[in-house]
């Protein structure tokens, strides 16, 4: 008798009708957006703050280096003594005082630059000042050696290497950024999905144990049917929640950013810095165009199909293990010791993805980890935008499938025995013994 649809339906409806599930579904995007907006607003506030920096230059080399910008005003305090200057800056409540002490020669200046302020100054302000001073000193030194300013300017060259594969496929730096964004998003999504909904499966197995309904149920259905029903039902609930989150989040994002006029691209994240760097070379006009070509350059069909397969494969692999853990223990506090071995490969996969795939998507480490079944879904999803040969994808998927079947067999064994075991916390040794029952 096939009860799978019935079980899936019950699991799905119980999850979806659960009050906390509903609340979370609608509240999470709100909280996320609110948080995002606050961060964006604050960082904007920080950048917008107008500050005055006083300059006291005893050498005269750096007099006209500092030009006022939108948010920073520079005032020259030449002629004052250091003590007077400090007192004055304090009184005016300026941001700080940049002091270049008297140096005997140009080479000596670097040792005499100091910044005085009430609070420790922000890193970006200091490094901005440093950059400007370095540039000027370099020019001065070159001038001393007889190079003119025009010559220096003429020597500036901008290089952008045009990339093309042997097959004649053109790409640029922005392509890589887009690939990273897609791969990273896919890998991270899978990671989140496994952690959130794997836990949900585990809890629902534990609930069946604690409410003691399990023996009633498995006198009617095979444990493996119950387990698969739970996994699939919970996943469907998860997909429902995710879709609602994406839609709601998208709508809210648009609404919030228009209402508050917050430019969300102002939020500085490492990825965005990379995008900015990549875009510096192209002007803003070509940017949109490049972005579109970059996206269309992606192996989209491959990406979508691979995403579906690796997502489903990876998710099922991990969730069957979560179900097994749920079956092995009596309450949630006992799950800790078994969670670690599951989380380790998952976290490892994300680290490999973030650190290695970005650096070298086809290097040994990335390639190896994209074959190991426990890390392959995440790592492979991150690699695919960079173009992975089909045979590699197929092999990796095959390995994943094989491991998945093994994991289900393993989990079903644990599940079958575990759901009827009450009262004591099992050890790994006992779990191993259960396999032979």
């Amino acid at each position: 008798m096939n009860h799978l649809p019935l079980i899936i339906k019950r699991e799905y409806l119980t999850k979806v009708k659960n009050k906390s599930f509903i609340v979370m579904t609608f509240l999470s995007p709100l909280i996320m957006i609110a948080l995002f907006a606050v961060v964006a607003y604050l960082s904007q506030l920080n950048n917008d703050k107008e500050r005055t920096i006083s300059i006291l230059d005893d050498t005269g080399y750096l007099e006209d280096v500092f030009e006022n910008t939108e948010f920073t005003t520079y005032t020259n305090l030449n002629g004052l003594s250091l003590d007077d200057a400090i007192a004055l800056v304090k009184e005016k409540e300026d941001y700080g005082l940049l002091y270049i002490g008297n140096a005997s020669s140009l080479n000596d200046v670097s040792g005499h630059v100091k910044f005085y302020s009430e609070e420790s100054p922000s890193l970006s302000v200091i490094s901005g000042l440093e950059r400007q001073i370095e540039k000027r000193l370099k020019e001065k030194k070159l001038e001393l050696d007889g190079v003119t300013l025009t010559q220096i300017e003429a020597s500036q060259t901008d290089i952008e290497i045009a990339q093309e594969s042997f097959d004649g496929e053109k790409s640029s730096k922005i392509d890589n950024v887009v690939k990273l964004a897609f791969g990273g998003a896919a890998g991270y999504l899978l990671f989140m999905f496994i952690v959130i909904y794997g836990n949900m499966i585990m809890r629902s197995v534990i609930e069946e144990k604690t409410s003691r309904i399990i023996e009633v149920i498995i006198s009617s259905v095979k444990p493996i049917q119950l387990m698969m029903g739970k996994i699939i039902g919970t996943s469907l609930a998860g997909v429902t929640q995710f879709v609602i989150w994406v839609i709601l989040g998208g709508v809210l994002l648009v609404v919030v950013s228009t209402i508050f006029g917050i430019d969300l691209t102002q939020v500085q994240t490492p990825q965005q810095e990379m995008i900015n760097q990549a875009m510096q070379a192209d002007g803003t006009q070509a940017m949109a165009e490049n972005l579109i070509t970059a996206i269309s350059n992606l192996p989209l069909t491959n990406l979508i199909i691979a995403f579906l397969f690796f997502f489903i494969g990876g998710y099922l692999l991990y969730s069957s293990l979560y179900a097994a853990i749920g079956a092995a223990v009596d309450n949630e506090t006992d799950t800790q010791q078994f969670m670690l071995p599951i989380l380790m490969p998952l976290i490892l996969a994300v680290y490999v993805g973030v650190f290695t795939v970005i650096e070298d998507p086809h290097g040994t480490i990335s390639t190896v980890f994209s074959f190991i079944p426990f890390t392959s879904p995440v790592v492979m999803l991150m690699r695919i935008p960079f173009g992975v040969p089909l045979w590699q994808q197929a092999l990796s998927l095959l390995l994943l499938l094989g491991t998945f079947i093994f994991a289900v067999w393993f989990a079903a064994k644990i599940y079958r025995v575990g759901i009827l075991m009450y009262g004591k916390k099992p050890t790994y040794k006992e779990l191993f013994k259960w396999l032979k029952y």
Partner: protein
Amino acid sequence: MNDLLVANSVSKNFGEFKALNQVSIAVPKGSIFGLLGPNGAGKTTLIRIINQITMPDEGSVLLDGQPLKPEHIRDIGYLPEERGLYKSMKVGEQCLYLAQLKGLSKTEAKSRLKYWFDKLDIGDWWNKKIQELSKGQAQKIQFIVTVLHQPKLLIFDEPFSGFDPINANLIKDEILQLRDEGATVIFSTHRMESVEELCDHIALIHKSNKVLDGKLNDIKRQYKTNTFEVGLESLDREKVISEIQDKFEVLPATFRNLNDDIKLNIKINEQTSPNDLLSFLTSKAQVHHFVEVIPSASDIFIQTVKNNQ
């Protein structure tokens, strides 16, 4: 074909531990079969094997002459000792779900549920959540779910735990009625008085082995010691007692009655009939009390378990 369920030399090991050792039982159609044994004897393992929750390592189980197969779960209703319901699910939904898992169609399940809800007078519980019910109330739902698909074989593991005496009686009557309608019942319990009341047949499992089985009356006959409990009135107590002691094996007895009688347990041998004893006694004293001592299920249980230590 008089036995609905036959287990042939069933064995089951859990690692080193032998949970069942060559256990055979035969449950006659239409009987109430008591499956007895101390805690941890292997009863639950046997019941789980019958329900195909675990598979036996050796031996076979036949239901209606056929080896157990997955379709048979429709023919079995099982009320486990460890039982519960989904706490946050509504009573009606939950009953429908569990009934459908047993292979009933939704409409069929609905009409049968209505019948049972009316019968047990709990119609207004349909939309309540299980967590709003008391333990006894939840047990009623559990009972209904067990019998709803009209199985040929009903297995009750401690069915009366959690019920007050009134509801326990109600459930007992329902079990008897189901038996009268043709169902066969396997009944596992520690409460010997309900065994006495309900069971026609019993099997006693102790330390993974079956140590006793058969019709309850036959077993009692085996265990009886031809002892009679008597209460006598006489003016010369010493003389009467010594006269009886000369002829029979005598033990002191305690029981309640109105007079300050001589109370004795008298054991007779195979050749002597109860009538012989009675006429001997009437010739000596006034007989107020004369009862054959029949071992109770509880006595048999304790004695068998002790003998097999």
